[in-house]
């Protein structure tokens, strides 16, 4: 069973709110100076430069005070390596498979076969776009039920041949739309989760960006669940949490801290098995190095799983998920 986490550093949050107030003050001062400069034809460039440098300093300090929010920002960074780039870089002779055989092909979820570490594997990955056009095509990384059903089809293929499944996860959520509901979004997710708990082949999951609730879990039950250092994994986005709890989406930064959604929190909670370190400053600053690090850790886990009899693998997987959670027992 999971442990109780240590108390959060509330002094840091108080300090962060103080910094925010001072930043707001600074930006008012800068705007005021600019207006005066124009009106009175004064050279205020240096003064403004000084104030802006001070604001940058405060912003950096602010980020350090809020590791959870920093992780949220990095996990959603537009230049973060995309799941399909990771798949393309790590898997040789990748062949994409399309469609759920029931309704349509969902471009928001990539599925296919290829070679990894000299072995055949099946890869699945919700995918986000690199630009607006791609993002529209991939529905901003939010799959429909047919996307999850395609993923299950690919996983069943892996099971049939005893190939490991490699799941690369970066999705904000399952798509919340009327058509998705009509076609059974909940059923598709529930089925995938159930089938993944008993799929008779190794499953390795790596959360590389956003692990958004049920929409992520539908492709993230596995023998090894790994996470990039600045990825997040959460039951609800911090904005949604703040809106529900405090009726104030502006308090997302606090909600991010309260939800304990960083990789180190999740390892402490027993939800994630291992953290994959990112290049200094985040994966977007050196995508190739980040992808190589992912590859190395995946290789180790898949090699370790390769020799394990399926029954043992399934028993371990059951025991692992069965133990997740925290409760107390009264007589």
């Amino acid at each position, binding site marked *: 069973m*999971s442990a*109780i*986490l*240590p*108390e*959060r550093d509330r002094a840091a949050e108080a300090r962060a709110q103080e910094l925010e107030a001072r930043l707001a003050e600074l930006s008012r001062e800068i705007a005021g100076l600019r207006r005066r400069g124009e009106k009175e034809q004064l050279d205020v460039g240096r003064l403004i430069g000084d104030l802006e440098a001070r604001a940058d300093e405060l912003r950096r300090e602010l980020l350090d005070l809020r590791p959870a929010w920093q992780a949220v920002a990095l996990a959603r960074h537009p230049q973060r390596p995309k799941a399909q780039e990771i798949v393309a870089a790590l898997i040789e002779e990748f062949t994409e498979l399309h469609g759920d055989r029931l309704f349509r092909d969902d471009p928001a979820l990539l599925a296919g076969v290829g070679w990894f570490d000299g072995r055949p594997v099946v890869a699945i990955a919700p995918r986000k776009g690199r630009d607006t056009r791609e993002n529209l095509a991939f529905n901003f990384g939010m799959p429909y039920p047919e996307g999850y059903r395609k993923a299950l089809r690919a996983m069943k293929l892996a099971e049939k041949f005893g190939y490991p499944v490699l799941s690369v996860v970066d999705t904000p959520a*399952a*798509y*919340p*739309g*009327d058509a*998705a*509901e*009509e*076609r*059974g*979004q*909940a*059923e598709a*997710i*529930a*089925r995938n*989760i*159930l*089938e*993944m*708990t*008993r799929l008779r082949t190794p499953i390795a999951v790596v959360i590389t960006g956003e692990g958004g*609730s*049920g929409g992520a*879990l*539908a492709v993230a*039950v596995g023998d090894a669940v790994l996470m990039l250092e600045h990825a997040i*994994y*959460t*039951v*609800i986005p911090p904005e*949604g*949490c703040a809106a*529900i*709890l405090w009726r104030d989406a502006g308090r997302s930064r606090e909600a991010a801290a*309260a*939800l*304990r*959604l960083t990789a180190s*929190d*999740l390892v402490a*909670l027993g*939800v994630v098995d291992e953290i994959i370190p990112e290049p200094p400053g985040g994966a977007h600053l050196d995508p190739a190095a980040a992808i190589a690090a992912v590859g190395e850790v995946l290789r180790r886990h898949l090699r370790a799983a390769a020799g394990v009899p399926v029954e043992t693998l399934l028993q371990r997987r*059951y025991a692992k*998920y*069965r133990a*997740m*959670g*925290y*409760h*107390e*027992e*009264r*007589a």
Partner: protein
Amino acid sequence: MLNWLRRPKYGAVERRDIPPGVWAKCPKCGATVYHRDLVRNLKVCPTCGFHHRLTAEERLAVTVDEGTFEEHDAGVVSGDPLRFEGYADKLREAREKTGAADAVITGLGAVEGSRVALAALDFAFMGGSMGSVVGEKIARIAERAVEHRLPLVVFSASGGARMQEGALSLMQLAKTSAAIARLHEARLPYLSVMCDPTTGGVTASFAFQGDVILAEPGAMIGFAGRRVIEQTIRRKLPDHFQTAEFCLEHGLIDMVVPRPAMRATLGRLLRFFGAPRLPAREAVAAPAGEAPADGGA
């Protein structure tokens, strides 16, 4: 335990400007009903058929054969693993308000003479949200069903995962699903009954994993919340969107069963799936001193 089965509390019915406990007003048609009549009618409005929500206690009281229910794992209670602000207070308030320990009651009992493992979620307790306790108790009752070779019947009523337990709540989807998978592998029947409302993480796990899925009329059933969907698609949704009837029409559930017919429907399905039977009613009810004819087994 038996006390509440005989004397259900009536907290779920809305009362406005009415002396408590005498009259109840239907939130749908506005009709004023003598409270005792409403309860006698299983809390279905006699005027418009609206199904008032039931607490877990009430649900078991109207479903389980009298005197057969044996609660399990009543002592499993929530902690505050994330030290989430306000959670400890919310738990305390919910316990005081409902008198329940958490959002689900589980146990063994009989429905129309068929022995079953049962779970009933309680929307009155923090919106029936699934945290570690709900997940643990559902997993345990599914495992107990396997152990005793009994069918499982689960009544769901939940807003989804309990966000105050963060990712641990999310993992309850995997935990309950793993236990339900074992139930299926043991070739035991699982009947899932969706009551108003069944949404979010509960639909994305055990509620949609039944061999047969039933729902109460008018129950709200769906994964994403209505408001979120409307914001996403920038359109108003029709009134019947995400109702039990809508789900039936779209092939997502097997049947919509009015509350007065629920017990008989479950009884029929349980007999069909070969649920073990209680000893004959006469034998159980035989007066002291008179041995039943053949032991009743």
